[in-house]
């Protein structure tokens, strides 16, 4: 149902006892006459409303016994999230030009060099950050070249906020969406996305859309393949699709990833050879990976000063075990239709397993607050509080060994340990929580 028809139904339901003229409805529903009458004709055809002539004018009222679709969330509920987004965006854009949205500066700097014949991987930004993504990402970022920085930064920040809103709506629990949006905006991962002008949030949204929205589509897998071609971490979701029985989607994702890589190889052969042969294993290019900002298992072991061979072995065995367990759990949830749970569990595993998991990679952990857990009542209540606390507060600054690795521990718990309750009938399509029907008989 479109927004115009919903607005008309809401307006009629506000006073179901009397007939409403077109002008009244236009004012009540906040619609122009052009939009109003298209909506009225559609509602008349579908039998949801009735019309009659009274005193030379036509009046409309709800059809007898017609259920009223009310808006699920009062717009005022979105105000806290909007205010938080506005303040965060202001703080981000008020930073000195040299450090403002620094990752976005890396993307634009690298592709500007590319247009002038340089390699993507020769670029080093003023803050000593190189371009670290596959060559296809460079092609995707090409439209950003030579744009004025401030309008670009404004547009990027706005797009990030819009994407966060979309992510909040994706789980399908509209009544909770404003509060989830607020948590997301205030969370460390989204704050980092806004602060650095990161692309991660867009990729996370596309992966989530692929898993949650394209379930019934023959094109499921396309977006995951595309995201993996831009940044390698979403590759793990292809395995999730495969083990959850979405074999066609997994093959399509792999084919998309391969096609994008081949297209980049044809367009940028030298950069492609350089990335896949050299830069992909050059992890130290990714920044100060021993800092607590890197919450991967590899990062935690580096902070413990483990020798490289030992560290690699531990990551392989322990990280591999967590990933395998996560895939097993996700496949089970996926087969039951609980795709939100599957998405979050595998997203958490990607945080554990990836060589580097910066804060902006950890947005999946925030979504874990939406997943109900099995256990005593106190545990069910404590779970979302604990997740929100770990993901909103600067816990990693409280010191080693536990707090500085708090988000890694949370990721391991989500991926492998916490028993999430399976989806029950009546839950949303994505499986996260019950869908409020939000319909009420008017008795008209």
């Amino acid at each position, binding site marked *: 149902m*479109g927004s115009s028809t919903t607005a008309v139904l809401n307006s009629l339901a506000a006073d179901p006892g009397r007939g409403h*003229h*077109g*002008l009244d409805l*236009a004012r009540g529903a906040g619609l*122009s*006459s*052009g*939009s109003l*009458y*298209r909506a009225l*004709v*559609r509602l008349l*055809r579908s039998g949801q409303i009735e019309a009659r002539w009274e005193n*030379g*004018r*036509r009046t409309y009222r709800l059809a007898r016994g017609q259920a009223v679709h009310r808006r699920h969330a009062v717009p005022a509920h979105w105000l806290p999230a909007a205010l938080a987004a506005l303040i965060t965006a202001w703080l981000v854009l008020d930073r000195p030009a040299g450090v403002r949205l620094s990752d976005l500066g890396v993307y634009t700097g690298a592709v500007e060099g590319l*247009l002038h014949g340089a390699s993507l991987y020769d670029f080093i930004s003023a803050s000593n950050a190189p371009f670290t993504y596959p060559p*296809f990402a460079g*092609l*995707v970022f*090409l*439209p950003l*070249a*030579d744009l004025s920085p401030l309008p670009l930064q404004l547009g990027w920040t706005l797009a990030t906020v819009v994407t966060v809103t979309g992510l909040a709506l994706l789980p399908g629990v509209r009544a909770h969406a404003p509060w989830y949006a607020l948590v997301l905006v205030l969370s460390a991962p989204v704050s980092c996305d806004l602060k650095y002008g990161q692309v991660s949030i867009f990729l996370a949204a*596309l992966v989530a*859309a*692929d898993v949650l*929205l*394209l379930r*019934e*589509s*023959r*094109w*499921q897998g*396309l*977006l995951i*393949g*595309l995201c993996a071609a831009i940044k390698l971490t979403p590759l793990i979701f292809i395995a999730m699709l495969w083990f959850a029985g979405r074999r066609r989607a997994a093959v399509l994702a792999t084919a*998309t990833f391969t*096609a*994008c890589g081949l*297209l*980049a190889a*044809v*367009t940028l052969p030298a950069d492609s050879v350089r990335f896949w042969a050299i830069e992909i294993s050059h992890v130290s290019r990714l920044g100060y990976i021993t800092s607590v900002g890197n919450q991967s298992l590899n990062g935690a072991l580096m902070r413990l000063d483990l020798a490289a061979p030992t560290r690699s072995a531990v990551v392989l065995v322990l990280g591999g075990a967590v990933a395998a367990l996560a895939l097993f759990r996700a496949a089970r949830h996926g087969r039951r239709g609980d795709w939100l749970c599957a998405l979050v569990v595998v997203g958490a595993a990607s945080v554990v397993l990836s060589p580097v998991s910066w804060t902006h990679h950890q947005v999946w952990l925030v979504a874990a607050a939406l997943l109900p857990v099995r256990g005593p009542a106190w545990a069910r209540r404590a779970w979302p509080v604990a997740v929100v606390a770990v993901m909103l507060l600067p816990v990693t600054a409280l010191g080693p060994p536990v707090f500085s690795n708090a988000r890694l521990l949370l990721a391991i718990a989500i991926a492998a340990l916490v028993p999430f309750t399976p989806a029950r009938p009546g839950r949303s399509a994505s499986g996260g929580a019950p869908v409020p029907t939000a319909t009420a008989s008017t008795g008209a």
Partner: protein
Amino acid sequence: MSGLDRLAGALIVATARRWPAEIADDLSREWLAELEALRGRPWRRLTFAGSLALSPAVEEAGEEPVTWPARLARGAVPVALTLLAAALINAVRLLYGGLGPAAGAAALAVAAAVMAYAGRRATVGRVVLFGAALYAFLLAGNEVAVMPFMGWRDIAPAVAVWTAALALTVRVSSRLRASARHRLAAPVAVLGGVVALEAATIAGSLRAATALGVHAGSAPAWLPAALLPAPGNGPSGVLLGNAAAMIGPIALCTVAVVAGLLRRAAPVSRAPGSRDALGSGALGIVAGLGGLAVGELLRRGASGADPMVFGFGFLAHPAGRTALALLVGLLVAGYPYVEFRLWGARRQRY
């Protein structure tokens, strides 16, 4: 009754004609009654009637509502067809230059057939979009003019005259067909197309004629002479060569529009089916981003080649390549909504 009141009433009557016939009378009566209720508030009356006049009519009973993605996809079709026309004209020129007039003529016939096949629908709005796309690609697409008289002062009058004449043709031919005068509708469409081309050629060449000292009395012969293989030397040769370069893509777009008019069957509607809108959207995103990569590939491949590939100069700029990627994405995402048919794919018309 003030002028604004009369205007509002006229807008209501005109709008009601566009709405489905079975509800038009009731709606017209209702809207006039609402206007009456706004008596004494002329501006409010005008905005009420103006909004109705500017908004699309509701779909026929049983049809699926036209969504914004569908509108965007439909709007992208004339742009894509304009680019197709420009590409075909470049191919014709290439074959003409390489293999001679016979090969050029054959290529032109194939190009016209392709455009006739692709042009599925002819409406006034679509002709206006064709005009805008032609102007953008013939001028903005060629920062360096391929001929001496192909600046905005030449192209703007040519495209404006062509758009007006062809829009009128579409209107007249469609009305004739609606009143079951099919035998008259077809010749009007063909004749209108030829007149539009003729008028565009003259309007686009007048400045050249003045500068070159070519007598304006020969203007009616410029189009047929420009279509001949060798326009000759001297001032009239320059004028005809210039006209031939300008009129090529316009002529192919004319073929697409006239072919749409000549099709006897009106566009049919499909009941809402198993359309995979979200999947198509995902496919559009991938195609659009893939289009960016292909645009860069073309740019790199074209460096050192002829920079004046007609109608495609815009690819030299990142914004132009982004626009092309957006177009590709829109067309792919909106494919279920458009009547643009390729390679025998299932026809879906709305």
